[in-house]
């Protein structure tokens, strides 16, 4: 359902820097660790909400952060771990002013080609089939997250990004 097509042709794809100094210091925060299942994803999102709410920024300020995190985690469950449910997902989350800083790591398959998918809106293969039912995941991540970076190192995928904490 969250299958994302690779960006066709590679033109215009935003440059993704490797995880740099924006990342949370590994020794600084104990990561939240959840299992790579739909319920593990739910637990991670509930924990994120509990940790950062109530927000002085408004009742829905965490909505976009929850959307991006959900899509990132769903992709790890479906693609990195291939729905096997085997393996942990580690989240390091930190509020930085009006943004949420996220560092998400897993030990599954690397991103195809070692790069992040693009963020084009999916289209139906056949117009008679009506609108697409999937492929929205990376579109939503690209639309809402900032400073996305990805690095694959020693069997670990590490994705870092910021999400604005703002009313929908």
């Amino acid at each position: 359902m969250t299958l994302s097509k690779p960006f066709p042709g590679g033109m215009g794809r935003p440059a993704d820097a490797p995880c740099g100094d924006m990342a949370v210091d590994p020794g600084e925060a104990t990561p939240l660790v959840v299992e790579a299942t739909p319920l593990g994803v739910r637990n991670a999102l509930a924990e994120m909400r509990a940790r950062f709410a109530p927000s002085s920024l408004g009742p829905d300020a965490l909505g976009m952060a929850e959307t991006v995190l959900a899509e990132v985690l769903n992709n790890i469950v479906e693609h990195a771990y291939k729905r096997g449910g085997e393996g942990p997902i580690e989240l390091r989350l930190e509020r930085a002013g009006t943004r949420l800083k996220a560092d998400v790591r897993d030990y599954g398959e690397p991103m195809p080609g070692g790069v992040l998918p693009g963020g084009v809106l999916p289209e139906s293969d056949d117009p008679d089939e009506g609108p697409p039912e999937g492929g929205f995941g990376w579109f939503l991540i690209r639309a809402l997250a900032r400073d996305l970076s990805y690095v694959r190192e020693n069997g670990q995928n590490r994705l870092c990004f910021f999400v604005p904490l703002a009313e929908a």
Partner: protein
Amino acid sequence: MELHTEERDDAIHVVVAEPRIDSAVAIRFKDRMREVTADGPPRVVLDLGAVDFLDSSGLGAVVAVMKLLGPGRTLELCNLTPTVEKVFRLTRMDRVFTIHPDAEAAFADKRSIA
């Protein structure tokens, strides 16, 4: 997946009594929608007022429900919460579905014609 339904004239009002439509429940949501709308009226008004969160799996399931209703039947939405509304708007799915602000608006047109 708890759904409450009420038939009104040529429409069925389906209220999703769950806070989330995500990858954990998307398939169940689709199956339950298929059950409650089978052989029903042509218009289906899906009330998402209790749904605080919908991910891309949930969005795909709503599109799938529209397709399984088939030609001659419509799926309309009402009562979207801010985060859900934003997901529909960003993905341009707000142009695919008729979206009413609330249930009253969804059923108002019909009354004025009658």
